[in-house]
């Protein structure tokens, strides 16, 4: 498939039109070599293929039930009817049969926000010590933490569940009560820490040593340096990783299935959506609207904070 640009570029490039601001002459010539009408068409085709599935679902979520089940969403142009009934249906509390998604939506937020905050704070604290602390065995310990990234979380699920529900329980008292968010917060924090420490360390280690030395000379301890210097300077890295952690937790299903126990009290929206697919896989009016309720937050984060998102991706992709 990589052969496509070559075939097209070779013949067509002289006709290429200039776009955007004036690049220096050399860049302009390079640009003419690598883009062409054929390549642009191929790119548009890929973009359309990549967008249509989501677009179809989005259109469908606003069609009445009979229309969704009766004919394809592409008929919307000839058979136009618009309704918000699907969204009302999936969001409203109603009986046990109702999707009741609003409740699960709140659960997702309640799981994800603390889960992200805990990981960021603990990860940054450890990363700071790995970058600027002086103690024996620092490098080996850091390598161990780095290596933990490769342990699939599947390796930890069974014993961790036992730990939460049996070991950390004395009589009726549970340190991390089941049926609350606590188990999910801790589990997510544990699974997020290795990558958090590694990425934040890479960033924090680049902070100029003189800044930290100066503060030390002035008598500042580690906690002062950490909160007054490291955290403000590392904000871009914290934001990038925070966004990723937020999206991972929001989109997680496996950890939720194991630790939430299901039900509207704790389970996140992904889990509910998965249940709806299983039990009533043909209820497209609910699934389409439900899917959109569940992806609206990640999409908003994605489009609103794309700059941080891409930066975080590159840091993670190129260094990890």
């Amino acid at each position: 498939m990589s052969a496509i640009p070559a075939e097209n570029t070779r013949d067509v490039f002289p006709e290429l039109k200039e776009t955007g601001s004036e690049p220096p002459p050399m860049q302009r010539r390079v640009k003419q070599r690598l883009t062409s009408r054929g390549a642009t068409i191929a790119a548009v085709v890929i973009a359309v293929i990549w967008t249509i599935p989501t677009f179809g679902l989005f259109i469908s979520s606003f069609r009445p039930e009979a229309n969704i089940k009766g004919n394809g969403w592409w008929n919307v142009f000839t058979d136009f009817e618009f309704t918000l009934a699907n969204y009302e249906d999936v969001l409203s509390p109603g009986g046990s049969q109702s999707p009741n998604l609003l409740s699960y939506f709140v659960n997702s937020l309640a799981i994800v926000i603390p889960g992200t905050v805990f990981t960021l704070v603990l990860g940054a604290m450890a990363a700071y010590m790995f970058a600027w602390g002086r103690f024996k065995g620092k490098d080996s310990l850091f390598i161990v933490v780095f290596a933990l990234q490769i342990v699939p979380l599947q390796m930890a699920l069974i014993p961790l569940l036992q730990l939460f529900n049996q070991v950390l329980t004395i009589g009726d008292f549970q340190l991390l009560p089941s049926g609350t968010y606590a188990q999910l917060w801790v589990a997510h924090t544990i699974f997020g820490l290795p990558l958090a420490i590694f990425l934040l360390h890479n960033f924090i280690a680049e902070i100029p040593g003189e800044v930290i030395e100066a503060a030390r000379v002035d008598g500042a301890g580690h906690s002062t340096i950490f909160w007054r210097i490291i955290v403000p300077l590392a904000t871009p890295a914290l934001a990038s990783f925070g966004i990723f952690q937020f999206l991972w937790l929001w989109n997680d299903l496996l950890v939720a299935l194991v630790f939430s126990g299901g039900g509207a009290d704790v389970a996140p929206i992904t889990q509910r959506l998965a249940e709806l697919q299983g039990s009533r896989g043909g209820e497209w009016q609910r699934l389409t609207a439900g899917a959109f309720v569940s992806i609206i937050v990640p999409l908003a984060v994605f489009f609103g904070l794309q700059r941080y998102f891409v930066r975080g991706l590159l840091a993670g992709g190129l260094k990890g």
Partner: protein
Amino acid sequence: MEDLAGKGLQVVVGLAVFAAIIGLIMLVVDRAPKSSREKLQIAGFLAPAMILLAVGLVLPALQTTYLSFTDRSGALVGLDNYIWMFTQPEALVTLRNTVIWVVIVPLLASGIGLAYAVFIDKARGEKALKALVFMPMAISFVGAGVIWRFVYAYKGPEQDQIGLFNQILVWFGQEPKQFLLDAPENTFFLIAVLIWIQTGFAMVVLSAAIKGIPTEIVEAARLDGASAWQQFRNVTIPTIRGSLIVVVTTITIGTLKVFDIVRTMTAGQYETSVVANEMYTQAFRAGEPGRGAALALILFLMVLPVVVYNARLLRKQKEIR
């Protein structure tokens, strides 16, 4: 409303407890006697994360390893779980599917991502074109599952189709098809979903790498009369090789762990199961934690060589610098 207040309270209490713990650590380490302050501060900063990792990841991973040698009653059974995995037909299908996934997804996702990155490089509307392909990255696997089940939706030949793929088949005069039920090709229709998600990742990373190629190199190749294809093969590919390897390995690891797509679209039925899904099914649905653990261990062993290779490469690059 009451419900909402209860949930809000839980979050507030959780955050407050966490803040109290962190505050206490900071307070203690700052007030420590001068002689031991440095050590105490280091310990205070590292301890929470290290304890969590030790108790929540290292220890459980070791326990899982042990568990993989036991049966459902907890008795040691040697290699029985592994023998089961490599002899039972349904377990073998799981392994075969995982291999298919791990070969196809990294290859196609990186390939399409690279092609797209080259096509749109410096094109008009590059940002918007990028965002469209990148968008699936933000969508959960569960959400993607709904989106694609809708694309694959099936209705009998006498009815109007509501799934796009079947409508296309009908337009071309074919019979509609049960995309997710008919083995073995249904695995490929699940694979398409992950490719759809991962291509955006490959595209963004590779696009950044392509933009990092020094203009002089490209210009020199052009002056030597290299065709666009030669430029691509002899300049672009070797220069971005490092990023390419990172992309392929990252997607490979992600593919090995794929769970949500299979779980929500077929639940691993109709011969579509993969190791990560079977692990969950055995451990948490079928009451066979030993088998689940063995599958988790296999997953770990599959990920291991990929990471080792990547780490070696990283070290080599550092040495060169």
